[in-house]
Structure formats: C-alpha cells, structure tokens
C-alpha cells in the first residue's frame, strides 16, 4: 500500500521530535525533560513506521518509551532534590557547546549539500508484510553471534547496575 500524505506526516512528526528534543535540553525540571523525551521517542517510532520498519517501531515503544524511560523516571524520583532546581542549569562550557554545534552543523550541511547526488532519489521498494519474520531470520541466522554477544552485554549491565546501586561500594 502506498503511503498517504507522506510530506504532511513527515513534517508534523519531525516538528514534534525537534520540539521535544529542544524541551529535553532546555527544561529546568528533569521530570519535564523525561516527558519531552518520551514524546520525542513516540514520534520517532511513528517515523519508523513511515520507513517500513514496524518491528523496530514496536521495539522502540516497548523498550525506550516503556522500559528505559521508566528507569529514568525512577532514578529521578530517587535523586530528585529541590536544590537542583534552584541551581544554575547550564555549566560554563556553553561556548564549547556552541562551537561544537556550529562545527558539526556546518559539517553536516557541507556533506549533505555535496552528497545530495549520492543519495538516490528513487528508494527501493520493500516487502512490508513479512518484516518481522525477515528481521528475525537475520537476527537468528547471519547475526547469531552478535545476538549472543548482546545477551552477554545485557547480563554484564544487569550485574553492573546491581553492584553500583549496592549500599556500600
């Protein structure tokens, strides 16, 4: 099925994502930042749907907006102190931030204006019905070893998080 009104939805979702991202780095309260980040992640999962990646969109919602953000909110609840709200929110490295942002932004603009012809106008047609099956067969076939390593990484992360959060370290 051909997508309907792609430009409208792309610009709408891009605007939601960018406004959410700006709110993440501008909000004084960390809880507001976390909520803005959730909005950004949900808009991004909608963009994944536009790019025919329904499985990754579902993983994004379940893992990011559901799992990681709950973890963030729990930690904010544990460490949130009113003193942090009254402090200065930005450090004295703002000029480093501006320099890095302008340099990277200029680099991106240069690459994209130069490389406009590299990216093909016509994009490949993909099968959308069996996306999940094909992703799964790649994960359990060609990327089997990386998959196992990822499970090991998660085990290490679990142990690390438990050890870090122990009473005496």
């Amino acid at each position, binding site marked *: 099925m051909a997508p309907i009104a*792609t*430009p409208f939805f*792309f610009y709408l979702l891009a605007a939601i*994502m*960018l406004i959410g*991202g*700006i709110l*993440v*780095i501008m*909000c004084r309260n*960390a809880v507001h*930042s*976390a909520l803005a*980040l959730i909005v*950004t*992640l949900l808009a*991004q999962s909608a*963009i994944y749907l536009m*790019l025919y*990646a329904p499985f*990754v969109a579902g*993983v*994004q919602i379940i893992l*990011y907006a559901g*799992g*990681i953000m709950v*973890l*963030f909110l729990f*930690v904010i609840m*544990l*460490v949130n*102190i009113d*003193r*942090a709200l009254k*402090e200065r*929110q*930005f450090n004295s490295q703002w000029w480093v*931030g501006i320099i*890095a*942002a302008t340099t*990277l*932004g200029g680099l991106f603009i240069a690459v*994209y204006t130069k490389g*406009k012809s590299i*990216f*093909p106008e016509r*994009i*490949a047609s*993909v099968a959308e019905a069996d996306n999940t099956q094909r*992703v799964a067969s*790649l*994960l359990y076939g060609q990327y089997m070893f*990386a998959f196992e390593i990822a499970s090991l*990484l*998660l085990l290490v*992360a*679990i142990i690390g*998080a438990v050890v*870090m959060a122990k009473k005496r*370290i």
Partner: protein
Amino acid sequence: MESMLHITTLHYLVLGAALFLLGVIGVLTRRNVVIVLMSIELILNAVNLNLIAFSRMWGGLHGQVFAIFVITDAAAEAAVGLGILIAFFRNKETVNIDEVNLLKW
C-alpha cells in the same frame, strides 16, 4: 518546493543530524547528570534514525537489525549509567556533573 514535498532519504538524514546536534548541545552544556544521560539517548536515537533511513534506501533489513542492537546498547548504558548516578548521589548528595571530579588531579 518540489524537493520539499518529495520526502527522500536526505530529509530523514537532516532530521537525524538535527537531533544529534541537540543531543551534543545537551551533553556539553547541562549540569544535571540525568539530563546529560537523556541527551545521550537523543544521540543514540539520531543514529538509529539514520540506520533505519539507510535500510529503507537500500531495501535491506541489515540496518534495522543494527538499530535493534543499538537499542540494546542504549538499555545497557542507561542501566549502568543510572546505577553509577545513584552511587554518586549516595556519596555526594548532588546530581551536579561539575561535582564529579574524584578522578581529577
């Protein structure tokens, strides 16, 4: 106008670049450790958006598989980072990243 209305891979890449820049600014300028970690999540999401856009461009699914691995890494990083943050908060009673200077000499 024509290029505005025909959404190509480049549009998604520009969106990803903008998100990446927001994350970099957040990491470099904020003082709250929690928000710095959230900015890192923004950066990882920008990378994921690029991977999915390229996967769409070539019609393969390798980019999507890689995006799933990046999400796994993001989960591990968030868990360990927030654990470190809790340990730090227990010792110093603050979430200000300027106070994280135990290894500074």
